[in-house]
């Protein structure tokens, strides 16, 4: 059986997409202005070097931006209108920004491209912690911690213990061939 189109869902999505045209009468913000604000917030507060106060501040600012993003208004028609396209994209930009900010605040260590001024070193206990974020409506995200699937012992054995120790906790390395041999 072919999947059927849910007309109600389509109508809802269509209405949502056209919202920026109907908010025009109510005098909402210009999507480009909201985008600039979002860009500036993320660049300054959740940038390359991160601090918890700044990220908390960012999350607050993102709430305000979300309100504005919901009521942006566009001018012009529907044919190839970048203002309208941006109004649609803003929702996704906002969700991604929320995910980045929330996960970065939660992760109390520095790892790869994530550098915390208040937690400057890499912490092995964090390596196996995944932070999974999912959208909860249009302007909220939900965070859960999930355990990383452990590496299979025969794969772990392919690496030297000294190298692994830099990244893994003692517990995870219990079954390594070097450890077994020492027994």
């Amino acid at each position: 059986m072919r999947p059927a189109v849910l007309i109600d869902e389509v109508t809802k999505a269509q209405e949502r997409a056209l919202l920026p045209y109907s908010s025009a009468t109510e005098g909402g913000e210009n999507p480009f202005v909201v985008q600039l604000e979002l860009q500036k917030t993320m660049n300054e507060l959740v940038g390359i070097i991160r601090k918890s106060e700044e990220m908390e501040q960012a999350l607050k600012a993102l709430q305000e931006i979300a309100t504005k993003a919901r009521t942006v208004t566009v001018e012009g028609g529907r044919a190839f209108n970048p203002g309208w396209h941006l109004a649609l994209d803003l929702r996704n930009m906002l969700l991604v920004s929320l995910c980045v900010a929330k996960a970065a605040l939660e992760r109390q260590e520095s790892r790869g491209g994530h550098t915390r001024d208040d937690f400057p070193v890499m912490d092995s206990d964090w390596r196996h912690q995944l932070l999974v974020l999912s959208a909860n409506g249009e302007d909220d995200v939900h965070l859960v911690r999930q355990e990383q699937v452990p590496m299979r012992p025969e794969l772990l054995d392919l690496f030297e213990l000294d190298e692994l120790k830099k990244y893994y906790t003692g517990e995870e390395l219990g079954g390594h061939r070097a450890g077994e041999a020492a027994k």
Partner: protein
Amino acid sequence: MSYDAHFRVWRGDDEKGELVDYPVAVNEGEVVLDIIHRLQQTQAQDLAVRWNCKAGKCGSCSVEINGKPRLACMTRMSTFTEEEVITVTPLRTFPVIRDLVTDVSFNYTKAREIPSFAPPPDVEPGDYRMQQVDVERSQEFRKCIECFLCQNTCHVVRDHEENKENFAGPRYLMRVAELDMHPLDAADRKEAAQEEHGLGYCNITKCCTEVCPEHIKITDNALIPLKERVVDRKYDPVVWLGKKIFKRAGA
């Protein structure tokens, strides 16, 4: 260092349009696309422009700047004086959708008309063997980013709608050349180049080469050699004699 520039941008759709004047701020290091984006942010939210990479690699932002076909993201503002009026118009050879965005499907149609790579039937995939030196020649053509600036510039189709049907344009004649030069391509492409893709329309003016942002020597390295290959075939005395005999035998 900032200053106010005078931009003149074509605004309109497939029916009508006009040049609109905009005073707009320009900062150091910016390119024309940055200024178009500033216009969107500050004065013309619905100004349509196509772009993606801002790095001269996607070929989306092709427009005409002061009449010259160029990539908007690679045209530095520092190449103009502060007093100069900068006129930005859509590509002229293709129908306008809105403002600076044109319908470039002509190019996709032409691309589809060229049969794809055809290795000899008895060579299995995985058994392809080629010498680097034989491959090198067509490698240059692979740099193409499909910005269609060359297609837009070529006088054969610019302002000559009637030629579009019979002419593939420099980018796609180059594609034919690339396949014809491919050491493992077994298809005969020479006759089709002339008869179907309109190679004969090209009179090697090199205008296409001049606008190519990838600096591919389209005319010198693809079109002229392809013409030579076609001519070689056409006026090859052996082929000529063969055809005569064949014709007589058939008659």
